[in-house]
């Protein structure tokens, strides 16, 4: 859809592309979120994270989330949502969400919405790999649809 870019990729995510997309002569504001792999989670030293992604469904759900943001904050917003799959070392970006709009409130709200909804609804799974050699799949949010 116009003004929406969603992506699942094995390549490094770049903020510059997201900010270039979330830009328009009538847009005075852009907000961008970067999620990165942390070195510590619940007291354990992390060396990296593997992201398992159902690519086709994730793309579809990302597009749905962005369409909802358009409905809520205006169809003129530019929206970007990209997630990486595969193994990421500490510090690498796993997700980038961005939004631009004429005024700032819509950008902040829409960007946050993309992030929160992505975490709840996208079929993506995080497996942490610890410095001690162990690995663990993270607990998560149950997907609706089997109720």
């Amino acid at each position, binding site marked *: 859809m116009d003004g929406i870019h969603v992506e699942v990729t094995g390549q490094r995510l770049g903020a510059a592309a997201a900010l270039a997309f979330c830009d328009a002569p009538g847009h005075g504001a852009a907000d961008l979120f970067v999620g990165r792999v942390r070195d510590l989670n619940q007291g354990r030293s992390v060396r990296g994270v593997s992201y398992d992604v159902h690519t086709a469904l994730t793309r579809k759900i990302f597009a749905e989330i962005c369409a909802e943001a358009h409905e809520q904050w205006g169809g003129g917003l530019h929206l970007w949502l990209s997630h990486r799959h595969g193994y990421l070392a500490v510090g690498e970006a796993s997700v980038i969400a961005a939004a631009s709009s004429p005024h700032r409130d819509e950008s902040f709200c829409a960007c946050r919405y993309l992030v929160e909804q992505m975490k709840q609804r996208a079929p*993506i799974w995080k497996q942490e790999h610890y410095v001690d050699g162990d690995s663990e799949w993270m607990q998560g949010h149950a997907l609706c649809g089997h109720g």
Partner: protein
Amino acid sequence: MQREFSICPFGAFRRYGEGPMTVSVPAGATVAELRTAFAATLQDDAARKLLACSALATDDALLNESEPLPESAELVVLPPVSGG
């Protein structure tokens, strides 16, 4: 007549099978019936617990428990998600 479904695991479900798992149900069964049949094939208590909080889906959409099974015989099992 039985229909055979191939169910591909994702996330934590990969612990219980790297490749697709096969489940057989009567033609005309619902998604809920497939879920029950799937649970019966799992050896592990933890696997059955994980299945109970997982969604079944095609590559297009999550499946509704009360609905008939989809045309596609290729399904996926999606445990609770943890993206970002």
